[in-house]
């Protein structure tokens, strides 16, 4: 039954597993080209839709595998962490984050990968991240009520919110992803610079 009971391994081994998971995560991000801010920013100029392709391939893969394992009864019901929904802080924070993403060229994980391969823009982005996080902590009392309570809906899933059976939503998301991949290929054909590797 998943998730595994790893506590019995002891904290050193569990921490080691987290380092290993992070290692594979960082490895995959770097191989995807996400240590390069040009590959990330190009998403927003329709020249290279790598961000969308990688993200939605990853989400669909994990969604299908987890759904399949749950249907097969191999996952303890309710045992997987579902990010609780704080709708408005999530949306406002997401828009702010998106603005920082297109100006700075990275998100936190990709900036760490960029830093790990000695890219100076990635290093400055990480430095900026820490300053932004300090600014958040210092100003939080000003909007505490908004942060804690606005649109706080708990562990609600998208299928619950839309009133759909989960299996139907899974199929719809797969179809949406395939549609976006098709559009992404068309856009790259039109705006992309095929064959010219950015540097």
């Amino acid at each position: 039954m998943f998730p595994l009971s790893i506590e019995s391994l002891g904290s050193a081994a569990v921490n080691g597993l987290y380092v290993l998971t992070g290692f594979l995560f960082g490895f995959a991000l770097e191989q995807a080209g996400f240590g390069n801010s040009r590959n990330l920013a190009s998403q927003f100029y329709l020249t290279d839709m790598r961000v969308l392709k990688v993200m939605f391939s990853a989400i669909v893969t994990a969604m299908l595998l987890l759904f399949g394992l749950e249907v097969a009864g191999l996952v303890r019901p309710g045992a997987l962490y579902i990010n609780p929904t704080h709708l408005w802080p999530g949306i406002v924070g997401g828009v702010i984050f998106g603005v920082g993403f297109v100006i700075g060229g990275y998100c936190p994980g990709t900036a760490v990968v960029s830093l790990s391969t000695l890219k100076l823009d990635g290093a400055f982005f990480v430095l900026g991240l820490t300053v932004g996080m300090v600014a958040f902590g210092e100003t939080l009392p000003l909007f505490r009520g908004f942060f804690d309570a606005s649109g706080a809906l708990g562990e609600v899933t998208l299928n619950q919110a839309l009133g759909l059976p989960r299996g139907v939503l899974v199929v719809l998301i797969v179809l949406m992803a395939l549609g976006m991949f098709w559009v992404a290929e068309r856009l790259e054909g039109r705006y992309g610079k095929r064959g010219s590797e950015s540097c």
Partner: protein
Amino acid sequence: MNRQPKNYLNPYLAGVLLGVVLTASFLVFGHGLGASGGVALLTGVAQSALLPAHAERNPYLVNLVVSPERPLDNWTVFEVLGVLLGGLASGWLSGRVRVETFRGPHVSARARWGYAFVGGGIAGFGVRLARGCTSSQALSGGAVLSAGSWAFMFAVFGGAYLLAYFVRRLWI
């Protein structure tokens, strides 16, 4: 040592690999991946080490790093350490580890550092307000169909596409 960098992986294949790592994380730990949490903890620990009296009065820091007995003994810290090592290993195998600055054709390296710093600052604030980043919200929450994570994901793309036109000289 002057190796030509290898090509990046096919994005769909890279995405499937990332999805398998994400699935493994859920199956082993019961939760997905994260990157911003570790950065936030390390930042908070550094801030409270520099300004201990201030940290005691700041509710955010009290919750994050003052109350926990060993704040750095947290999975997000170990995971971000792994990300650093994995990125380095992948970059090294593909001949991409070298000091350089990625930037648009019309931006100097120095200006790019400034924009990266400012963009990072804005993103850092947004990430904490949204309780997570592209990894912990969009990828992880997205895969288990959290409603808030999907709203966050579309907000990120929305914010970036809205501003992209106005900052196009940074990139194209």
